[in-house]
């Protein structure tokens, strides 16, 4: 109980450690988002559908990811399995 309370209230003992975890998480989050958007794209999802699930605009997703993914899959876009909804 004591242990739990302290953790919840105080966070890590060293603020530096806490802040560094944020940086590490931010960098990992970026990589994870890129990977999952790419996975969805390969699975045949449209930008619109990816954006909807991410809860952001289609333009935002496209702007952030299209260039990278296009460079990775030049020429034909990956086969679209089924229709976008």
């Amino acid at each position, binding site marked *: 109980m004591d242990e739990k309370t302290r953790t919840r209230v105080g966070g890590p003992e060293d603020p530096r*450690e806490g802040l560094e*975890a944020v940086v590490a*998480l931010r960098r*990992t989050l*970026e990589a994870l988002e890129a*990977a*999952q958007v*790419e996975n969805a794209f390969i699975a045949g999802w449209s930008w619109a559908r990816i954006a909807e699930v991410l809860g952001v605009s289609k333009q935002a997703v496209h702007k952030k990811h299209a*260039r990278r993914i296009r460079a990775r899959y030049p020429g034909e876009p990956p086969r679209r399995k089924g229709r976008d909804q």
Partner: protein
Amino acid sequence: MIFTRFTDRSRKSVEAALEEARMLGHDSLGDEDLVLGILRVDEGLAAEALTSLGVTIEDAREESEEILSDALSSIGISLEEVRREAGDAFEMRIPAHRRIPFSPRAKKALVEARKEMRRLGDNYLGTEHVLLGILDNQDGTAVRMLARLGVAPETLEERLFELRGRAAG
């Protein structure tokens, strides 16, 4: 970045640091990336000093990744699991079109490098000045990365001056 007085080697090292930062997913160029850049170009006194103390670029990159993965562990996240879940598409590398700014620490290291150059009465800014500038910040990630590789800042500095003396003599 202003490269006034930089030698070819030190300029190349800073440019290589950007590549290292990009590869490792560092969204800003840290002082540890400056060390990686020096090792990557592998020319000049700084690289020689680091290498002579057993620091390789592979070990340094690995240590930098380890620092990130340790930071994630501290909040209960396993980088390995994230990687496994996301599959082959997961990579830390930052896309080519995204700009990577210099971190305040990296900027400060380069400012200190210039001061080191003046203090030593040199008229060129070499890799040794850059490394001294990096070591100036005991609180930086570079110093911690080197410590984790078993290299104390004082030892490195000593070796640097030893090599400098030899080059001059």
